[in-house]
């Protein structure tokens, strides 16, 4: 294992970052352009060594890193997977990233990892469960985490709470921060027939430590209603940029990540998305 700890960055700058992809390593070394920090998916760096950890170490010596987990299953009915929590603790302990975040979703059931961010009903029972799991994560990692709002495609008849109220209450009870994915807001609001700006208005923006922007696909359901799918495989669309602008005007500048995980473009196209985020951030005080 790599034992020396990389230089530590204590915070993410209120500037653009991108999700790190190994194919961009050489471009980044040459000139990262507008990109001032990077996010990695925790699970891709849970091997013992080799190129992934060597590249991560190089990045972490030069840039603030945000670690984004996709496998903790915080919304799961079952207890958290202790082995996975231990792996995460090991990675976070070595890397000392500026931030760690996970999702308001579940992904594991009965030892099967399903590799998707699955939805949960918003009730008092799930609220208690999610808070308990976050307490456990924050205790094990010894740091505050952030929880991200999901893209949702359907609703639960049993839900009694709005997603914004649910997240605000989670943050209040557990002391965690929030990661606001503006594309997810746009996707969910469209799919749930809600007003995206009203969602932003209701969101506890003071708790937001990071923002995500990404692309989505467009489809429709069997009734002909629009059905947007969070795909992270395209540029951010104009209405999402407008919603981002709306958010930044209200929240102030925040670390803003471009997520592009599928059909990953060449570096200049990804960097251009980061430049666009920088222009929005430039309009407010840092």
């Amino acid at each position, binding site marked *: 294992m790599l034992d020396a700890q990389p230089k530590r960055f204590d915070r993410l700058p209120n500037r653009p970052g991108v999700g790190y992809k190994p194919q961009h390593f050489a471009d980044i070394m040459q000139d990262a352009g507008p990109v001032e920090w990077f996010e990695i998916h925790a699970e891709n760096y849970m091997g013992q060594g080799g190129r992934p950890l060597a590249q991560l170490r190089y990045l972490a010596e030069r840039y603030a890193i945000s670690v984004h987990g996709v496998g903790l299953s915080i919304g799961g009915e079952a207890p958290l997977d202790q082995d996975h929590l231990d792996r995460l603790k090991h990675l976070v302990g070595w890397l000392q990233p500026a931030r760690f975040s996970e999702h308001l979703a579940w992904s594991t059931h009965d030892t099967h990892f399903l590799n998707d961010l699955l939805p949960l009903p918003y009730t008092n029972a799930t609220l208690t469960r999610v808070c308990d799991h976050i307490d456990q994560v924050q205790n094990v990692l010894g740091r505050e985490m952030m929880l991200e709002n999901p893209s949702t495609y359907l*609703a639960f008849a049993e839900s009694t709470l709005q997603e914004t109220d649910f997240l605000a209450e989670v943050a209040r009870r557990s002391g965690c921060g929030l990661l606001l994915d503006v594309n997810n807001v746009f996707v969910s609001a469209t799919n749930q027939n809600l007003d995206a700006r009203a969602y932003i208005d209701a969101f506890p923006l003071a708790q937001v430590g990071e923002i995500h922007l990404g692309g989505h696909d467009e489809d429709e359901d069997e009734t002909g209603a629009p059905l947007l799918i969070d795909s992270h495989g395209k540029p951010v669309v104009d209405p999402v940029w407008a919603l981002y602008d709306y958010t930044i005007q209200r929240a102030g500048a925040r670390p803003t990540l471009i997520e592009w995980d599928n059909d990953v473009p060449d570096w200049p196209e990804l960097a251009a998305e980061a430049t666009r985020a920088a222009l929005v951030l430039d309009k407010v005080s840092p």
Partner: protein
Amino acid sequence: MSVGQTDFTAALLDPAREVPEGLTNPDGQPATKRFDVYRNNVASSLLDALRTGFPVLRKLLGDEFFDAMGGIYLRAHPPATPMLMFFGQEMPTCLAGFAPVAHLPYLPDVARLELALRDSYHAADATPADCSAMATMSADQLLALRLTLAPSLKVICSAHPVVGIWRANMIEGAPAPTAQPEDALIIRPEFDPVIERLPAGGAAFVLALMAGQTLGNAVEAAEAQFTNFNLTPVLQMLLHTGAITEVLNEG
């Protein structure tokens, strides 16, 4: 009415199952196509992970067959951990018992080789030992040594020409595989694992070293498998790939 994650998961993995009651569109109506988004996300992302992880199997089977088989596999053996880079551990066993590919008996070993390459890629780093002293040792001194080998070193024994099959599918201009059985040694000099063809008895020799045997005992293990085992080329292979990370003198 509450939708449990057991029912949700069962319906996710089985497209023939009804969408659980209590999942709706914004008008409170059943949400079949909306549920299908989750079904598709799960199946397509896991299939992508299999495609990435088994490039040679995919070439051997063709995209269409691989995808159909992958769809069966991912439902029968969903990942046991969120580390998708290790997804597919049951593929060799699964292929060995899969009647439609019974006429391709080498597939399970190709799958084992591809899994070993991934293991090697993510294995712990190690620094090659300074082995220069070995050149001036007597035969007795040499055979009394124990060697620690790099964590990225893997051995795959096969009754099929796995190395030739792998090379023919992954390296442009590589010769067609022979009909001879081949044992493979996988080692990662820096970041990219390489595959070497082990000579007869070589696999038994390396496996004995990995188990902590002396060089002398490892040679005996190799000779038990192949009477005319020649130590030199295997030792050279270990030396020039940087596989030896520690040289321990007996006693």
